[in-house]
Structures are given as C-alpha cells and as structure tokens.
C-alpha cells in the first residue's frame, strides 16, 4: 500500500546491520574470552590452592626456621658436638697443607700433562688405525706388506711435544717422543693421578669420619628438619611452578593429580591440619605408610579411591558424584582401600579399623550366612582336596591299567627291542603310581585334618537336650540379647509361633544320652579358678560396669539359668567329649573351638558349681509344645528359612548351605543392586545413597529396608540384628567397602609366596582361636587378661599375665613349639599344669589343632621373626670345667639372682617363682635369643619382670654390672655368653649343685 508519489528508501538495501553485527561480534568475543577464562581458571582451581600454599607454607617455614636453627645451635653447643668439632678441626688442619699440594699437582701438573700426551698419542693412533683398516680390506699381500711398513714408520716417528711439568710448578719441557713413549707417558700420568687422588682420600679419611660422626650426632639429636633443609624448602617455594602436580603409573595407566591441591602431603615437615590454615594442605597423617607404599609407585587413588585425574572441583576430584564408581573413602573408612592389595589377610598391620572389621566378620559369625572368600576356607579346601583325591585316584587306576596293557603288549611283542619299550613304559607307570601313592596319602591326611578343622560358627544344637534347660530355649531363641546382652547370637525377628516351632524341632531332634552325675563343688574355689585359670581370656562375666573378660566367647553371667550342671562339668573338663552321634563318624566330627584347660575333675566341678550359681531368679514358662511333633515339622521350615544351620550343627540339616549373599565383592557391587527399597528417594535426598550409607544403616538395623513395606512375614528381610556398636558398624562398613574386585595387576597386590605368606596364613588361625585373648602378639594388642581388674590393679598379679609372643619365633625352636602347641603340658601323664610356666595361674590350654594347623602356627611364628625353616641348631661351644665353675658362681652371685625368680623344681621355692625352669632351656630356646634376652629383656618383652641392665659393656664384651665373684674376675670372655652356654648345658645335677651353693 505504498504511496506511489513518494518513494521511500528500500528497507532491505538501506538498513544497516552494523550495530547488530558489532553487538554480536562483541558477544562472540566475550564468549571466547569466557571460554578461555573457564578453561584456564575455572577448570584449574588448583592454581588458587597452589598460590595459597606457597604463601602459607613460606610463612610457616619462615616461622619454623629460627626454631629449628635454635635447636641446632643448642646441639652445636653441646659438649659432644663441640668435642667432635674440635677433633675435626685438628684433623683437617693436620692434612690441609698436603691436600693443597696434591690438588695443585693434579690440577696444574698431572692432568694437563696427561691431556697433552694423550692428544699427541691419539693423532698417531688414528693414523695407525686407518692403516690397519686398509690392511684388513686389502687383498694384495704386497700392499699389505708395504702398509705394515708404513705402520712401523708411524710407530717409530719421533714427535716433538711440549709437556707441562708433572709437579705442577707451571713449567714445561720439550720432549721428542715416539708412539710407545707417548703412550707410556700418558698411562704414567693416569696412574699418578689415581695415586694422588687415593692419597688425598686417605689423608681426609679421618676428617670425613669425624664429619659424618658430627652430622650423625646432629641428625640423631635433632627433632625435625635442620635449618639448611628448611632453607632448601623455602627456596623450593620461591621457585615454585604453578601447574599440575601428578603421579603417573604407566603400567596401570593411573594418573593422580591429588597433590595439585594437597600440596603438603609429602613435605618433609609435619604440617598439622591448621598449620597452613586449611586442612587441605596438611601432610599425610601417617607418613610411615607412605614409606612402605611410595606414592611414586602406588599413586594416591589406588588406596583412597576418587578420581585422580580430575582437577576441576573438589567433588569431581574426590569422585563423590553420581556415575563415578570409585568415590573417595571417607576418613573413617580410609582403611577400606588397603584391601585393594591386602585382600588375602585377616590382619593387615596398621589397618586397625579394617582388622577390627575382619575380626568381627569372623567372630560375629557373619560367614555363617554370607560367604566371603577366605572365611571358612577350610570347608572349601576340603571340597577341593576331596576332588583332587578323586582325580588322583582315577589317574592311579588309569596308570595301573595302562601298565598292565603294556606288560601284555610286551609279552606278545614281535621282537625284544619292542618288548623292552613296552616294559620300560610299564616300569615308568609303576614308578609314577608309587609317587602317586605318597601324594594320595598326604592328601588323605590333609583331608582328615580339614575335616577336623571345618566347624560351624555357633555351638552344636544336637546336644541341647543334655545341655540346656528346656523352658529356657524358646526364651533364648526369641531374643538372645535380652538374656545375654551383646551375645553373638543375633536377634531374629521371629513370630512367637516360629519361636515355638524352632524350639520344638531342636528339642525333638537333639541326641539322647546319659551324663555322668557329679557332686557339687566349691563355688568359692571355682570363682578363683574361673577368674585366673584363663576362662576370662575368651569369656566374660558380669554385666555393665562389673563386666570383665573377653568378648570372644559367651558372657556367662546367667549361665546357671540355662545349663545343666552335669553337662557343664563335662564340658569344662573336656570340651571334646561329646555325646556320640550315630550319623557322624568320629573322624569327621568337628573339633570344638573351646580348648581344654586340662582341669582336674575337682576343678571342673568347682568352676561348674560357681557358674551354675550365676543366675537371676527369672522363671521360664512351661513349654509343652516342645514335645509336639507337628510343631517340630513346622520348625524345620522355619529353621531352613532363617538359615540357622549356617552357624549351628542341627540334626537333619548337615548339608544345608548358606542363605545370604556372597559378600566377597560387595564393595564393587553396582549401587543399583543394593536394595534401598522405599528408602531410595530419602537416601538420595539426604545424601546417603551410597555403599557406605547402605552398609551402615543395614548393619545398624538389618530390617531398615523393610520399613514401610507391605510384606508377608516370611517375605521380609531375614538378616538378624546383632546390636552392633557404632564403632563396630564403622569397622564392618570399612571392611565391606573395601571388599572389591581389585583393579590392580598382580605385582601391586600383596600376595607373597615366601615366608610372609606363612604370616598371613597364621593370623587366620590366631584370629579364629583368639590367641590374642591371652597373649600379646602384635605391639599395641591388648589382651582380655590385661583388662581384668585384678591384673591391672595389683602389681603382683601383673606378673601373672600370660607371656608376650612378640619374638616367639626367635625365642623357641620350631620343633619344640609344635610339640608345645599340641600339648602345652609337655607331658603325657602330668597334664594338670603348664609345661613351661608352671608358676602361672593362667593355663595355656590344649587346642584341638590339626597337624596342618600346628604346622601353620609354627611357620607363622618362625616367619614373623625371619627364622629359617627347617631349623638348624647353632653349634655351641662346650663348657670347660673352669668355665662351668665360673658360670656356677655367676649364677648364684648377688649380681645375678637368677634363682630368686626362675623355677628350680623345688616346690617350696617355686611358690614365688616368676620365670621358667632352666632345665628346659636347651630344648626350648635358641641361644642367640637367650643371649639378647639377658642383655635387654625390656626390648623383647616390655614390662617383663626380668630386670634390664644386668650387664655392662666392657670393651668388646659384656660383664656383670654388679660385684663380680672372685673366680670370674679373671675370666676374659663375655659373661652373658658364658651364662647362655652354661644354661644350655645345664642338667638336673648341675641345678642341684647350684641350689646347694645358694
């Protein structure tokens, strides 16, 4: 509708887009700048970390430097340092002139002369070498000859050289030399230089020795870094380059850039969490772990998880976001990472939380329902061994058949040579089978051993008719923790009728048998025995504040309410004595976990009497339904459903499998497979939708993921409640979080095949048998005994603690140890005693170890102390008569009151003894250990009654610290060594002689 009269400018061709273009170009530019800023700054937050670290750390070092310098000064002022410094000065002064002379001679004389001679020599030699090559490639003998002459000519050519004088005076001499003379000149100078340098070294030896002594003194006394080292660190900070700090492990393509922000981790100065204001900069809290696992070889995320590559943000780097499968462990679970490589162990030194988790898994009986590789390995090994046996037997039979065939073929062979081949083959097979016989025998032994070792976690329920009070059983099944708080038997969520059915089944299917009737004993004596014999190593008694003893076995506070007295006597006297079960052959009968304390009948009765008085006046309602066969039939289903047979021997359910999931790789299970059920959304919102969140909540309340679910009773979650403490939950969570499929190749994993494997193996047995309930095996390990008031409060009882086993392998001979473990009484008849420490009230019990376990335990102790197996006894120099006399004197001198404490076999004296008899030393101990023990017992067994500093150093030998008996004064040898030899050659007669002397 344009007005034709007036033509307006065409909007299309006249409109300018300059502004649009300018604005959009500017925006484009801005977005480019933003992209670069994003890439350079936002995506590299570590730059700010590094800037701050440099500032804070420099300030920290500046403050630290003078403190350390002052410490160093203080050490420099100390008389020892001053003295060494003085000596050093003197020593340096004494050789200064000579050193200067040598330096001048070498620098200005010998080396220039040598160089000059060599240069001239090399010119000639190159010429000769070229001629030689021509000779080698020439085919004309005449040419060769002439060229050889040419070489001769070169050799004899006289060269004029100007050589500096060797004495370093700066002068030169002009010489006319031939090829060989030049070579001699050169070699001569070389030798001279070597000699002079050797002389220089020799001259400085004393000064160097003193200097390193001085430096050693400094580093020995100085806590922390020296001032110069700190200066070096400060210089590092001045030259600090801002950029990615990364560890790259090529073989597993691991890139860890953790240290781009955690800059203080490997600083040699200990940086506390707030020393540099922000904890991100602190140094690794356990630097000793980094010395074993050098981050350059292991990286960071291999242990800690997280996304080592990511540097974009804390969340990304720590991998704590959706879709990252390996989020960093939280500090309380940090030891979970150990299992990446230490998966085969039950004890990993330094991983105390993890160890606790593993021990709980073992000793709370988790493996009754949940398989976990390594736990209950005996059962699986037994299967494997049986299979292997069958295979070998089949091979054996096949071999035998083939042998017969070959013999027949040989008999009918056409000619002798062929017959011989068949016969040879038959012979070979016969010998193979002979070898197989031996192997089969070993496997059979192993099978028998394993059959003894396989045992379920809980007590056998086949004997409950003889053992327990009938009416008590349903109450216990209903809620074990009400009767016995903290019991390992967890609380199942059972309906009352299920309780009755289960009880009825157990009762009606239990074995019938007769028990020997026992009279009542003396409860007071029983209590004393119970508290001191060793029962408290595993069992506890009392509740609340008065509870004492170990938590490995049951708390016996109310045991009198549940157990029959006669059964209790039999059980205490010998746990291996059981009512015969017609369905289980004796050889296949599992040995009880509870060991025998080798008590007399009277002692057993006393303890049983004391224990049977441990009861409240709780009344149990009558339970007639327990004799109702219909109830029992229903009970079988309930028992199957709840997996009771996972932990208990139950008649009719011997072959029952586990009902729970295999947890070996639970930590790598996809999160989606963990059933958060109705809690999923809540977990996501509250931030615990993670493995950790699942484990913690499940362990705290195993029914938690049933909450709100509309389910039939039997469809509900079955896992019972163990009422774990927060610490236990954390330990088990740590253990499960670390139960992952390792991402590391073999060379990273700790799967040793040398003696360290014996140590790994041994810990399994030790944990399973609670050796640490009585003994201290690892430093820091607190035994149950050490928590009993009697032993902590009374210094006299402190000496009654069972021995520490820190260096047991170095102490005793392996054969003896095996024998001792098999029978700690060291006697077949006189069993009611300790074989070694008869003076101890606590008694080393007889465990029902199989031969395999005995061997493993022995190997464990030997391997821990790097003792060679088999053991080669040290040759011991026999005592001369004179030495024997001196030894005798030393033994009874006031300076060494050995017999005041050590047992002698004289009952009146042994009442107060606190140390073993010398008579068994030679078969039990190793001389070298004994020698060290006498010198410094406290460093072998901290807190021992054996006093230290019995000897003092005299030149190269140890002599008695006190007054030396007259006869020994002239003795030139080492007193401790003499005493060791004396001890190892002591016999009964000698001991009597000693007593007479005393």
């Amino acid at each position, binding site marked *: 509708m344009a007005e034709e009269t007036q033509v307006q400018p065409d909007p299309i061709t006249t409109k300018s887009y300059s502004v*649009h273009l300018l604005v*959009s170009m500017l*925006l484009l530019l801005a977005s480019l700048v*933003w992209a670069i800023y994003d890439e350079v700054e*936002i995506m590299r*937050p570590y730059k*700010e*970390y590094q800037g*701050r670290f440099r500032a804070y750390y420099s300030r920290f070092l500046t403050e630290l430097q003078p403190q350390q310098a002052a410490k160093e000064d203080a050490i420099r002022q100390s008389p020892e340092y001053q003295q060494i410094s003085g000596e050093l000065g003197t020593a340096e002064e004494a050789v200064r002139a000579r050193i200067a002379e040598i330096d001048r001679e070498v620098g200005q004389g010998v080396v220039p002369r040598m160089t000059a001679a060599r240069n001239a020599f090399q010119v000639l030699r190159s010429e000769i070498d070229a001629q030689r090559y021509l000779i080698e490639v020439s085919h004309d003998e005449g040419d060769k000859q002439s060229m050889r002459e040419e070489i001769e000519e070169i050799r004899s050519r006289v060269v004029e050289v100007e050589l500096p004088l060797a004495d370093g005076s700066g002068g030169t001499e002009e010489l006319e030399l031939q090829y060989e003379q030049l070579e001699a000149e050169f070699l001569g100078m070389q030798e001279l230089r070597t000699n002079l340098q050797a002389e220089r070294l020799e001259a400085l030896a004393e000064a160097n020795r003193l200097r390193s002594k001085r430096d050693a003194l400094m580093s020995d006394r100085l806590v922390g870094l020296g001032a110069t080292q700190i200066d070096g660190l400060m210089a590092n900070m001045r030259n600090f380059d801002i950029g990615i700090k990364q560890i790259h492990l090529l073989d597993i393509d691991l890139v860890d850039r953790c240290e781009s*922000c955690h800059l203080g981790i490997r600083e040699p100065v200990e940086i506390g969490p707030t020393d540099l204001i*922000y*904890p*991100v900069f602190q140094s690794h809290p356990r630097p000793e772990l980094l010395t074993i696992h050098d981050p350059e070889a292991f990286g960071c995320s291999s242990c800690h998880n997280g996304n080592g590559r990511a540097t974009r*943000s*804390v*969340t990304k780097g720590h991998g704590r976001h959706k879709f990252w499968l390996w989020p960093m462990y939280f500090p309380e679970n940090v030891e979970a990472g150990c299992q990446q490589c230490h998966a085969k162990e039950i004890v990993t030194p330094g991983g105390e939380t993890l160890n606790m988790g593993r021990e709980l898994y073992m000793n709370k009986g988790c493996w009754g329902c949940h398989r976990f590789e390594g736990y209950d390995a005996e059962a699986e090994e037994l299967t494997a061994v049986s299979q292997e046996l069958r295979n070998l037997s089949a091979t054996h039979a096949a071999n035998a058949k083939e042998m017969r065939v070959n013999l027949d073929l040989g008999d009918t062979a056409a000619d002798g040579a062929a017959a011989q081949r068949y016969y040879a083959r038959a012979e070979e097979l016969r010998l193979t089978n002979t070898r197989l016989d031996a192997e089969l025998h070993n496997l059979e032994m192993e099978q028998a051993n394993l059959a003894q070792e396989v045992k379920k976690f809980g007590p056998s329920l086949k004997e409950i008719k003889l053992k327990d009070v009938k009416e008590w059983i349903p109450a216990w099944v209903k809620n074990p923790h009400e009767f016995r708080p903290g019991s390992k038997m967890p609380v199942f969520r059972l309906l009352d009728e299920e309780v009755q059915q289960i009880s009825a089944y157990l009762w009606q299917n239990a074995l019938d048998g007769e028990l020997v009737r026992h009279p009542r004993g003396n409860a007071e004596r029983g209590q004393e025995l119970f508290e001191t014999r060793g029962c408290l190593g595993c069992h506890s008694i009392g509740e609340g504040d008065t509870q004492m003893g170990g938590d490995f076995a049951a708390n016996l506070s109310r045991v009198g309410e549940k157990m029959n007295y006669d059964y209790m006597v039999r059980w205490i006297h010998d746990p291996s004595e059981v009512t015969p079960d017609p369905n289980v052959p004796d050889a296949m009968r599992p040995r009880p976990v509870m060991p025998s304390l080798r008590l007399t009948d009277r002692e057993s009765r006393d303890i049983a009497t004391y224990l049977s008085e441990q009861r409240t006046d709780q009344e149990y309602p009558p339970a007639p339904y327990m004799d109702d066969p219909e109830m029992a039939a229903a009970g079988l289903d309930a028992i199957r459903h709840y997996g009771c047979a996972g932990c208990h021997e139950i008649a009719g359910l011997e072959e029952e499998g586990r009902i729970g999931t295999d947890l070996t790789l639970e930590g790598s299970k996809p999160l989606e497979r963990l059933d958060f059920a109705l809690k999923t959304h809540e977990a996501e919102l509250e931030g615990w939708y993670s493995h950790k969140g699942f484990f913690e909540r499940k362990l705290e309340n195993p029914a938690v993921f049933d909450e709100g679910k509309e389910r039939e009773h039997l469809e509900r979650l079955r896992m019972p409640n163990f009422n774990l403490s927060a610490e236990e939950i954390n330990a088990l969570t740590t253990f499960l979080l670390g139960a992952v499929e390792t991402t590391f190749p073999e060379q990273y994993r700790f799967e040793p095949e040398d003696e360290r494997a014996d140590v790994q193996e041994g810990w399994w047995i030790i944990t399973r048998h609670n050796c640490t309930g009585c003994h201290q095996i690892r430093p820091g390990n607190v035994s149950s005994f050490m928590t009993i008031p009697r032993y*902590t409060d009374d*210094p*006299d009882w*402190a*000496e009654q603690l069972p021995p520490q086993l820190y260096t047991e392998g170095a102490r005793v001979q392996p054969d003896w140890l095996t024998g001792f473990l098999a029978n700690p009484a060291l006697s077949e008849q006189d069993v009611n005693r300790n074989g070694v420490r008869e003076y101890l009230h606590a008694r080393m019990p007889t465990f029902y170890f199989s031969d395999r376990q005995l061997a493993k335990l022995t190997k464990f102790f030997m391997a821990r102390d790097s003792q060679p197996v088999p053991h080669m006894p040290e040759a011991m120099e026999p005592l001369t008569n004179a030495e024997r006399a001196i030894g005798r004197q030393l033994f009874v001198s*006031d*300076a*060494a*009151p050995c017999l*005041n*404490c050590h047992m002698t076999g004289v009952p009146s*004296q042994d009442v*107060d003894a*606190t140390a073993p008899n010398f008579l068994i030393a030679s078969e039990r101990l190793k001389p070298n250990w004994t020698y060290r023990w006498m010198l410094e*017992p*406290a460093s072998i067994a*901290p*807190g*021992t*009654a*054996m*006093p*230290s*500093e*019995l000897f003092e150093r005299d030149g190269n030998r140890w002599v008695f*610290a*006190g*007054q030396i008996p007259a006869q020994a004064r002239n003795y030139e040898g080492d007193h401790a060594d003499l005493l060791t030899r004396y001890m190892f050659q002591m016999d009964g007669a000698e001991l009597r002689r000693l007593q007479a002397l005393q």
Partner: protein
Amino acid sequence: MSKGKVLAAALLPAVLLALAVACGGDDYFDDYDARTRGQQGGQSGGDAAPVGEMVTVDPATAATVTGMITFSGDAPRFPPVNMSAEPDCIQLHGGRVPSDRVVINDGKLQHVLVWVSQGLEGKRFPVRTDAVNLDQDGCIYKPHVVAVQMGQPLNITNSDPTTHNVHPLPRENREWNKSQTSNAPAIEYAFPRAEMKIAVKCNIHPWMQAYIHVMEHPYFAVSASDGTFEIGNLPPGSYTLQAVHEQLGEQEVQITVGPSESTEVTFAYSG
C-alpha cells in the same frame, strides 16, 4: 518481528543460565572459612586453655596447710614380711619384719598422700628441683610412699648387700625395669607425666612394694610417721584437699586460705 527480539529471546535465557552455573561452582576456601567461622563463634569462651599460665607465688602472702592423719578402730592386719627366699635380707633384720602396707603409730597414719586435688586447674608452677629419695634398705622400700612433682628428680638407692631390681608399673608413664646391685650408684629418674599410685616392685624380692605419686603441681605432702603433713607456699584461695592411701582409700576436704594464713586439717581414717 525484528531480529533483535529473536536474538534477545534466544540469548537471554542462555546468559542467565550461564551466570547461574558460573556462580554455583564449589569453592573450598570460602566454604571452609564459612564453616570454621561458625565453629569459632560457638567455641569462644568455652574450653580452658590447654596449657596453663606459669604462676609465681609471692612468699609474703603464701599460705600454709598443716595437718594430721588419724586412724581409729581396728587396723587391717597384714602378715609380716616373709623374706625366707633371700637369706641376705633376713640377716638385715633382727627377727620379724612387720608389713609396711598400713603403718599406724599411736593412732596416727603414716604414708598418706595429701594433695590439692582441685583449685589449681589451668596453672603451672615451677618444677621442684630437690631430689626425692627412695631407698631400698633391708629389702624394704623406704619410704613406702613417695610423691614427686612431674619432672622432679627421684633418686633410688640400694643400701642392701644384695641386688635389687627397680620396676615401676605405671599406666601412663613409661615402664622400665632396671637392676641395681649393692652399692651401685643411685638410679635417677624424673617422671614426665603426672600419675597417681605408680606401684614399684622388686621382682627379685616379690614382697617389696612402694608407691610413687607423680603430681602436676608442688602442693602435696606425705604424712610422716607421726601422721603429720605440711603443704607450704600455697597461693591464697579455695581448694579441695585430698588424702590418698592405697589400702584405705581417699578422703576429701574443702579449705579456703587467705594470704599468709595457716590452716590446719585433720583426716580421720577408721578401721
């Protein structure tokens, strides 16, 4: 419909979204500062300083506490010391050696530690430098109870013709066990940490027993054979005084002492 509007409509949400995301990044340092600021606000004025101030006591105004430990009733009976295992020791005594576990002279109890258990928190005092002596004499520790300040030297001597070993069994200090032959030089030791009732044993002579109390401050005393004790140079103030006997237990008393005052306190034990 101009391109300008289309352009604005397209870019605006994008820019807004971009800004929202750009501001949402996690900043460790700011977060940490914010967190710790909150904590410090809550903490201030809470805990006492871990290391107390060093106090110098003006002798002009210092107070003294003296007192007596009495015992009434039947004393617990302990069998006499049996030294039969060591003839050397028997010879040092003319016959029966009474037990040193509870020593009562005319109703006055010996070997009781009296110390200021409350009222000195957060203060530090100079360490006493005078050595305390613990002698092994006649195969008996003399005295049976000693008290030292932490860091104060303790000299253990052997006056017997026989070898002893000195074996303190602390729970918090370092444990050690040294043999000491007859007339050997004194073992000097200063306990670095405060700890009550450290038992000392001689493993060679199991009957020998002593107790060492290591105190944080210098305000303590052990009752003498006449049951008296004296704690001097005490800054004026209110205190709780505690008496400790390993066998007979503990007693407490509240006292207030003014400048240069002298207060008398009696602890009465009974059988």
